[in-house]
């Protein structure tokens, strides 16, 4: 619906159209600010996480080469633990952000969209670093003639499968990050007892991603017990995407009408 401006006849936005445009721009600003905060704050500390992961990997390689026999991947463990780091960041960050976001005129909806966008960016970038490190390690080991076996069954065999490592680690990072956020907001809105009671629900996407992506002690054993250990990589990844979608749905349920607590 448009008004026509008098003599010129050029369409002029109605008040309703103008309002819609202003609201849409405000929503985009809120989403962007939330995503930037999540990504910026995560990487601010994440740089140290990766520096420590590299240092630990270097120590493992040095210790093994001194012993004369390098037969364990040095970076699989540290790089694969990025998801746990992001789980913690997912718990810590939203509590500081959600209050300022709503107090500055944002909505829960723009907070949710920004958080999901931020989780996607963080997931992809952390997955990329993990895949690059795994690939670089494989390349180095091959050049030095070292042979290693991945300690636990996973969808990929080693770091040479760059694309698959990237996808698996990205999905893990997104799911863990969003589940951490869900847990934090669960405690924020329901308090200690109910927040704890809701923990298993918030961890369902994590459990599902571990199951379908067959990672570590838990995921691999669980998949074998359910007869899913022979699942193809693509089916596993599809299950991982379902886990991420479930994490978004759960976060939405916790965020959509969360009240801001009174100031202590």
């Amino acid at each position, binding site marked *: 619906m448009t008004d026509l401006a008098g003599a010129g006849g050029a369409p002029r936005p109605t008040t309703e159209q103008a*309002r819609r445009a*202003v*609201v849409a*721009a*405000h*929503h*985009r*600003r*809120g989403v*962007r*600010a939330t995503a930037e905060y999540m990504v910026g704050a995560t990487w601010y500390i994440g740089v140290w996480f990766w520096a420590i992961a590299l240092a630990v990997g270097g120590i493992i390689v040095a210790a093994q080469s001194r012993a004369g026999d390098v037969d364990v991947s040095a970076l699989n463990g540290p790089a694969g633990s990025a998801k746990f780091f992001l789980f913690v960041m997912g718990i810590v960050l939203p509590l*500081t952000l959600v*209050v*300022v*976001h*709503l*107090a*500055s*005129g*944002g*909505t*829960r*909806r*723009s907070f949710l969209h920004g958080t999901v966008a931020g989780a996607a960016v963080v997931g992809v970038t952390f997955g990329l670093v993990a895949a690059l490190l795994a690939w670089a390690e494989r390349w180095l080991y091959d050049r030095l003639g070292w042979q290693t076996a991945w300690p636990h069954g996973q969808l990929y065999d080693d770091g040479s499968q760059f694309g698959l490592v990237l996808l698996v680690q990205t999905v893990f990072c997104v799911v863990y990050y969003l589940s951490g956020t869900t847990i934090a907001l669960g405690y924020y809105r329901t308090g200690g007892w109910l927040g704890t009671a809701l923990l298993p629900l918030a961890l369902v996407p994590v459990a599902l991603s571990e199951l379908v992506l067959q990672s570590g002690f838990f995921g691999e054993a669980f998949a074998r017990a359910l007869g899913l250990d022979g699942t193809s990589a693509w089916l596993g990844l599809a299950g991982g995407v379902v886990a991420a979608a479930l994490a978004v749905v759960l976060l939405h349920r916790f965020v*959509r*009408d969360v*009240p*801001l607590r*009174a*100031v202590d």
Partner: protein
Amino acid sequence: MTARPAQPTTAPPPFGAELRDVVVRYRRRDEAPALGGASLTVRPGTITGLLGRNGAGKTTALALLAGFRRASAGQVLVGPAGAMEDPFENPWAVMHTQLVREGGDVWGDDRAKDTLAHYADARPLWDGDLAAGLLDELEVDLRKKPDEMSRGKRSALGAVIGLASRAPLTIFDEVYLGMDAPSRYAFYDALVADYAEHPRTIVLSSHLIDEVERLFEDVVVVDRGRVLLAEPVEDVRARGVSLVGPADVVEQFVDGRRVLSRQRLGGTAQVTLFGAFDAAQRRRATDAGLELGAVAVQDLFVHLTRETGRDREAQR
């Protein structure tokens, strides 16, 4: 990095606000809700004082207006006259409503300038020059983290955010706690000056009634989850009368009326009485050599909230 979406430059008209039979229970089995059927109207384009004792429901009422939480029952509306809407998850309403709570809703662990940059980006009518001038006047160091600031400086940061947001509905909830007297008066002066230049609706919740009552155009008194009165400040002041003059003459006019306060210095007395004087009574008092004045809002507030407390005790 792409450019941020442009901020609109025209301000909507001042917002009004209404609560209609609003109930808020923090727990389902709460016997005494934070608000129990509260109704009030904040007129657009006024400075309204929201007064109440601790736990009266002021903060809850203000949180509802800013969309910080939902009412358990009843209706909450904000917006320009004739176009009021529920603010909860309503982007148009909340982007034009700024509630500043005690402590300021800031990032405590980051430098204050980061919080200010966030508000500047989020608030469509933000005035950076006003913010810079006020920060300078209130001596707030933006390089400091709010968690490292004194309570007064942190409050001042919140006050700056509230004023510089230029929101059509700007709400200050005990925002000046911890601020020293010069800072508080600088804040009041800045508030009045900016309000005159950029008319909007301002709601002030405060325990420092004597200090802020000169700012009020309307007053709302909340007590135990209910609204005791909501009316223009002149009507509030006319609910009582202050008499000054020779003690014996003053006492003649007390005559069974409820005394809100009484002071005596030598042979001169001042009493504040509850209940309006009609024209004949005023003439008689003036003829008797007494000076008549309006009742202080604080005296009336103390009287009203004490009275409801006594009523409830009696009902028990």
